[in-house]
């Protein structure tokens, strides 16, 4: 065996046998082959494009869910209303042991779902019943507002298909008129524009309409569930249709499928922490005492460099 093939300091410039290698030709061929492959796959399989859902489509397709969610925003019982940072102080948010990272980041995107999603948009509604309902709501104490909204939310919960309920004893206050007014606004499509354009008439930030839509009890999650996009369906890495999606997120999605992650109220921060540790391990692999030796112990390198090792043994 040639002494040059037996041992070489990997930190030093290679002084052993060489071969011709045309890097530029290889690069040009790679561009052509990969380009043709991408164009062929695009022509054969296209790409998914399910139209965006809107508050209008929600109100028309699932009016009871829309009314129930709007009432929930007034009662403070939706996900957004009880979220915590960065939207409000209604909850402490997720914690990682003593670390309250979510809370510590602060309320940087302040949102009051009752006001922002329901009361403020109805300011453009000229219907006398809505105008008077809004006035009554604003004049009431927070405690009274909560009693009205919770009473109506409870009643709607017992009649899941209802979009309005009679109130012979007045326990619902102005809430039915407000919820019905918002429903009417949504059906015209006006609510989509009002929530998106709250900060600027040319919106690029859809935080408010998307948070409201995501508060939906059935419409939004059921639509996603039917397309295998829910979290317990490996949803983070999937996309609509039979497409690969973000398959590179498989490990991230994996943790949501098993305990203790999937049953934890702090699942998101636990998964993020786990992935951070694993990512740092991958990043600093060259310095990890045992892991960096694994490639030497499992001889996959002998397959990769099989022609070299064959030559060495001759």
């Amino acid at each position: 065996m040639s002494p040059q093939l037996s041992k070489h300091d990997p930190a030093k410039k290679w002084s052993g046998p060489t071969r011709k290698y045309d890097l530029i030709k290889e690069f040009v061929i790679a561009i052509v082959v990969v380009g043709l492959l991408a164009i062929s796959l695009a022509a054969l399989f296209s790409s998914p494009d399910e139209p965006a859902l809107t508050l209008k489509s929600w109100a028309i397709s699932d009016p009871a869910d829309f009314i129930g969610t709007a009432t929930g925003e007034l009662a403070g019982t939706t996900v957004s209303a009880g979220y915590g940072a960065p939207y409000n102080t209604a909850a402490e948010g997720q914690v990682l042991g003593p670390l309250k990272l979510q809370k510590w980041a602060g309320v940087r995107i302040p949102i009051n779902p009752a006001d922002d999603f329901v009361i403020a948009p109805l300011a453009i509604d000229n219907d006398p019943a809505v105008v008077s309902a809004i006035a009554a709501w604003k004049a009431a104490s927070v405690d009274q507002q909560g009693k009205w909204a919770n009473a109506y939310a409870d009643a709607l919960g017992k009649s899941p298909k209802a979009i309005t309920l009679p109130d012979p004893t007045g326990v619902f206050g102005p809430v039915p008129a407000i919820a019905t007014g918002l429903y009417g606004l949504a059906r015209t499509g006006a609510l989509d524009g009002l929530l998106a354009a709250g900060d600027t008439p040319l919106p690029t930030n859809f935080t408010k309409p998307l948070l409201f839509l995501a508060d939906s009890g059935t419409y939004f999650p059921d639509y996603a569930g039917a397309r295998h996009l829910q979290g317990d369906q490996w949803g983070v890495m999937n996309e609509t249709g039979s497409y690969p999606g973000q398959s590179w997120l498989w490990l991230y999605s994996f943790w949501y499928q098993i305990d203790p992650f999937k049953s934890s109220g702090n699942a998101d921060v636990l998964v993020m922490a786990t992935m951070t540790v694993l990512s740092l391990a991958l990043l600093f692999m060259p310095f990890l005492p045992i892991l960096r030796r694994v490639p030497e112990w499992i001889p996959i390198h002998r397959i990769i460099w099989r022609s070299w090792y064959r030559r060495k043994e001759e």
Partner: protein
Amino acid sequence: MSSKKMWTTRVRESTLERFEPKDLLPDVQPAYVASWIYIFGVATIAAFVMLVASGLVLTFEGPAWWHTSSIGHFYNSIHLWSVELFFVFMVVHLWGKFWMAAWRGRRWMTWITGVISFFASIVTGFTGYLIQTNFDSQWIATQAKDSFNSVGIGAYFNALNTGQAMLIHVSLLPLVLGGLVVWHVILVRRKGVVPPIEAGGSE
């Protein structure tokens, strides 16, 4: 002032003067550089070129073009399949380099720039999914926000803010990723391709 102390001199000496033209564009390689695994590095870069090219077309036509134009939809499909190929090639390249223990011989920075490129690619791919302006992007944004919010990042990177994601995806991340790839390739050229394990010993 001694030219040795000049910043310009120092930068030139630590960059340009450390490379011979033959090191940057060599026409020979060690005899062990003979395996299909070496294809996946250059294939990743080729897919990146396709991504930038198809992405530029989509950028010039605007974010909603592909919903209403069949040509636009085709360019979106090229962009999608280029990113799928990009990740397949990159992951095979990464695994290949792991089993080659390619960090040996003081090549740890080459490994680290490669892994950071992988992470930057994931963020770039994710922001791309956020700006599709369709149901996919709505759903992904509303789900992902909880992860970002849980660690405090959501207060600064708002997945529901399409404009923020679009600017980051189109203007910032391709530059970051492109810079990382150039740095990674320069390190490969400067350090040379890692030798086989027994040939190079273990560090």
